């Protein structure tokens, strides 16, 4: 029997996240295993009058390519991908997998070469998005491989995913709109801040955010969602940060990442496991060792770490930052083929100071600074 939540999710993505309009061309990009969601997305897109095109991935074929391709093949960019970036009105990408370790034996430098080649098309999409010419959204479809990474049964994981999107509510769209208002208020307050200082275990990091835009993220680019983010001033990050959760890149885990910043750039990186991958990624290009994003996770319907960044970075009571490409709409000018998010848990006593004033403690914004962001059903 079809899970009704798949249909509800598809309708929300098409109507709320992408706001698809008649005649718009939308790419639905997904691994084949996400077929139930792909079908419902096609159906919802058609109902909205849009023109869906599906772009399906087969991980094992991807492995066959990545493990044998020459440098030239890795760096070849399909003219179709370029044309898509230039002409699409919307794109939805679905995270799902048969085996999240499918690419774990592929040399990271090969992955980096391909990411690098994909950079210009990604850049085109980001720039068109900043001009309002394309709407894009990333979501996830619950499947066994993701459930396995989360140490959950598939049924439990499905509940986790749909609850994280508040799909159990009578009117999830209304809840997301109300949440959006609250995040926008926080973003406005943060816009006046010049310097942020984040303090947690083995962490004391200072970032310049003067003149940068803060954005609430409430289900339009990611779903589920829940964060406020900006692009820190490139040359000003300094200090140390230790990430609580493993940083994951294409199925590879880098554990207990510690970064030291000076003058905006990572000058020292350490990890308990996967340090080589970390160093390699940070050296991918000039922008890869500079922060492109700093954000606070605000979805208090997500409480546990599941090794899937789409959910992990939204955990209510966490902070995450990404080395690599920044979002131009925040004012970030950092360019890179990399955008690697890493998450720090603040719930055990972490603090954030805005121009010296405490605004966030133990995983929550202080009541005098921000409205309550508790889950709508709590």
């Amino acid at each position, binding site marked *: 029997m079809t899970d009704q939540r798949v249909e509800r999710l598809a309708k929300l993505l098409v109507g709320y996240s992408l706001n698809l309009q008649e005649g718009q061309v939308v790419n639905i990009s997904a691994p*084949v295993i996400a077929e139930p969601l*792909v*079908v419902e997305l096609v159906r919802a897109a*058609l109902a909205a009058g*849009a*023109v869906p*095109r599906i772009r399906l991935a087969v991980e094992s074929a991807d*492995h*066959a390519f990545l493990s044998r391709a020459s440098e030239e093949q890795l760096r070849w960019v399909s003219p179709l991908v370029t044309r898509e970036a230039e*002409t699409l009105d919307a794109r939805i990408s679905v995270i799902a997998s048969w085996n999240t370790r499918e690419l774990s034996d592929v040399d990271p430098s090969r992955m980096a070469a391909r990411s690098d080649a994909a950079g210009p098309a990604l850049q085109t999409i980001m720039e068109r998005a900043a001009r309002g010419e394309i709407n894009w959204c990333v979501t996830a479809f619950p499947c066994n491989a993701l459930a396995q990474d989360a140490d959950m049964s598939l049924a439990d994981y499905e509940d986790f995913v749909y609850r994280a999107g508040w799909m159990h509510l009578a009117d999830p769209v209304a809840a997301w709109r109300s949440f959006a208002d609250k995040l926008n208020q926080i973003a406005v307050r943060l816009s006046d801040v010049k310097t942020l200082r984040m303090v947690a275990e083995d962490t004391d990091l200072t970032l310049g955010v003067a003149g940068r835009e803060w954005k609430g993220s409430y289900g339009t680019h990611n779903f589920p969602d829940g964060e406020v983010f900006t692009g820190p001033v490139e040359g000003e990050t300094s200090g140390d940060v230790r990430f609580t959760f493993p940083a994951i890149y294409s199925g590879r885990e880098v554990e207990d990442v510690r970064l030291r910043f000076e003058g905006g750039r990572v000058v020292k990186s350490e990890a308990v496991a996967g340090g080589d991958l970390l160093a390699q990624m940070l050296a991918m290009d000039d922008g890869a060792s500079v922060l492109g994003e700093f954000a606070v996770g605000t979805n208090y319907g997500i409480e546990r770490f599941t090794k899937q960044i789409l959910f992990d970075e939204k955990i209510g009571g966490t902070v995450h930052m990404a080395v690599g490409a920044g979002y131009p709409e925040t004012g970030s000018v950092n360019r890179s083929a990399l955008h690697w998010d890493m998450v720090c848990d603040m719930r055990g006593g972490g603090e954030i100071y805005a121009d010296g004033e405490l605004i966030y403690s133990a995983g929550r914004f202080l009541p005098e600074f921000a409205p309550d962001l508790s889950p709508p059903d709590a």
Partner: protein
Amino acid sequence: MSDDVHSRLAALVCRYSLEVEKGHVVLVESPAVAQPFLVALVAELTDLGAHTLLFPSLESVETVILSEASRAQLERVTPVDELAVEVPDRAISIWCESNTRRLSGVPAGNQAIERAARRALYDRFFERAAAGELRWCGITLPSDAQAQEAGMAQADYRRFVYDACKLGEPDPVAAWREQAARQDAVVARLGQVSSLRIVAEGTDLTVDVSARPWISADGRENMPDGEVYTSPHELATEGHIAITFDAPFNGRMVSGARLWFEKGRVVRSEAERGAAYLQEMLAVDDGASLLGEVAFGLNAQITRATRNVGLDEKIGGTCHVALGRAFPESGGTNASSLHWDMVCDLRSGGQVYGDGELIARDGVFL
């Protein structure tokens, strides 16, 4: 075992059928269920230095779009759709169905609307092919649905399809080169014929093929393959033909069909099953009741009909005719939206005469 057969098939198609070279852009369109073969194909293409554009599809999505899209949505051609026929140097289509009746409930007109809107894309694709800029190959892969259609177990059907591709031979490429040479000999013999008469039980058909080039289909554009074909003179066909095997078309089936021709045109038709559909199709346009093709199946590894016309028409020892659209490359001029192949078994007592001389007996060319 299965990985091995997939690798062998991928090598055959890439090296023999398409002669893929380093730097080629190769478009692969395939149902996603063909995943194990796709892995082998991507590996082979990558090893050959090609750039693969992999476009897996889902029957479920196809059905939803054809059922629920508006006319405007069906007709929309995007800039990416247009570019997709310009970019490839090689194109591979994989036929592998999960449910052969998936379109049963789809409004018939919707397929026609979509096809008409994409006509310019198909034309451009074949224009590039005719200009030598592009080569393509369609591959039949075994599936449960097709085995079910054939009334066979999965294992037996797999062996049947892969044997038809000559993958059981020690060197499939060499086997196809031999097949090609045998077909060239048949083409040479048929090329001398003006009046071709086919006689079998319930069949005595005469077609005029004078100065119409015969073409050998020897595994380059289809896999499996194995036939020689031409387009007969449009208004010269006389006599009658009994169609031996079930003739599927667009998900419908006609069984036990018989056709009578005068001055090229079907003047009478009968069928044990699906007679009304047959008559409907014959009347679909002016060219639908004329022959667009006459051909001989020459693949000795295909010995039985499986309700898949792409395979049935290659059965060694059969002939087939197609109602409707002719092949310009054979000098055919018949235009129609129909091209419906129907197969006549010659293996038990069939005779083929070229200008009165016996040239094939029991389906075997002398």
